[in-house]
């Protein structure tokens, strides 16, 4: 802290006892510092009781109402922000309904089966072998009747002479 600052501090009563003694000793020896101290004292004396009063250009009630309006405007802006993203929310509702409808119709229609749905059943005296030819696009069930008496093609058809036609 330089001498000027110490003088100002002394004037404001901010120095401790030791520093006060030192500055007072300085003032008795240094006329320049003593003159500055005197000037500071005059300045302080002139300021005390003569500080200009700052008046608000508006009434207290109006000042606070302005703050209140500012707060309300901020709240309105915050409330308006979700409306900016509400367009997709509004699309979301019919889209969700549509998806639900699709799901219901899929369940009602039962979906579509796959190859796993293929199956066969035969009586006890009949054996069956099934297979699928991917290249020929054929699903084959080959049955073997243990009694061997089933023939859908009659002997007459197999051996009919041309004249019978």
């Amino acid at each position, binding site marked *: 802290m330089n001498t000027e600052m110490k003088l100002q501090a002394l004037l404001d009563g901010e120095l401790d006892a030791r520093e006060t003694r030192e500055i007072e000793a300085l003032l008795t020896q240094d006329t320049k510092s003593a003159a500055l101290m005197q000037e500071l004292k005059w300045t302080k004396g002139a300021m005390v009781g003569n500080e200009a009063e700052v008046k608000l250009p508006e009434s207290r009630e109006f000042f606070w109402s302005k703050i209140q309006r500012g707060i309300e405007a901020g709240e309105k802006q915050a409330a308006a922000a979700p*409306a*900016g*993203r*509400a*367009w997709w929310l*509004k*699309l979301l509702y*019919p*889209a969700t*309904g*549509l998806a639900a*409808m699709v799901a219901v*119709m899929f369940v*009602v*229609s*039962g*979906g*579509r*089966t*796959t*190859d796993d*749905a*293929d*199956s*066969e*059943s*035969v*009586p006890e005296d*009949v054996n*069956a072998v*099934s297979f*699928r*030819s991917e*290249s*020929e*696009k*054929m*699903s*084959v*069930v*080959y*049955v*073997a*009747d243990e009694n*061997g008496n*089933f*023939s*859908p*093609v*009659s002997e007459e*058809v*197999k*051996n*009919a*002479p*041309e004249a*019978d*036609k």
Partner: protein
Amino acid sequence: MRLKPTSKPSRWHFLVLLLGLGWGLLQVVAASVPVETRVQAVLVWGTDEAKSTAKNLKEVDAKLREKLGKIFKWQNYFEVSRKTAGVTAGKPHTLKLSDDCSVEIKILPENLAEVKLIGKGKTIVTRRHSLAKPDALVLAGDDKNNTAWFVVLNFN
């Protein structure tokens, strides 16, 4: 497309809703209308014998002959009879292919067909066949003198 951030429902919302309702209505109508499935059944006799022994039978068409020939061992395939019918879902339909052979076809839900091969009044085999794939269904078995019979069913 940029949508305005407005609280009022826009015409896009109504359009989406309208399309959804229209699609749903079509599905309901389509599900309620009975669909007829065309079924063709061909009874075929497969043999290695010379063609002259079955003079009253004609050979199956080249496409079917090629398909059967790639799967089975017989040299010749003769068409014994051919029947075609429209089968309505849920109602069984019987096609008589010969005196001793007929097939009963029933269209089931879930795009399935149930086919019963009936020989001399007895059910020889019951097959559930998926109509989701374009496959023909062939029911076959051994016949006398190292020959075979085939019932070829096509659905569309």
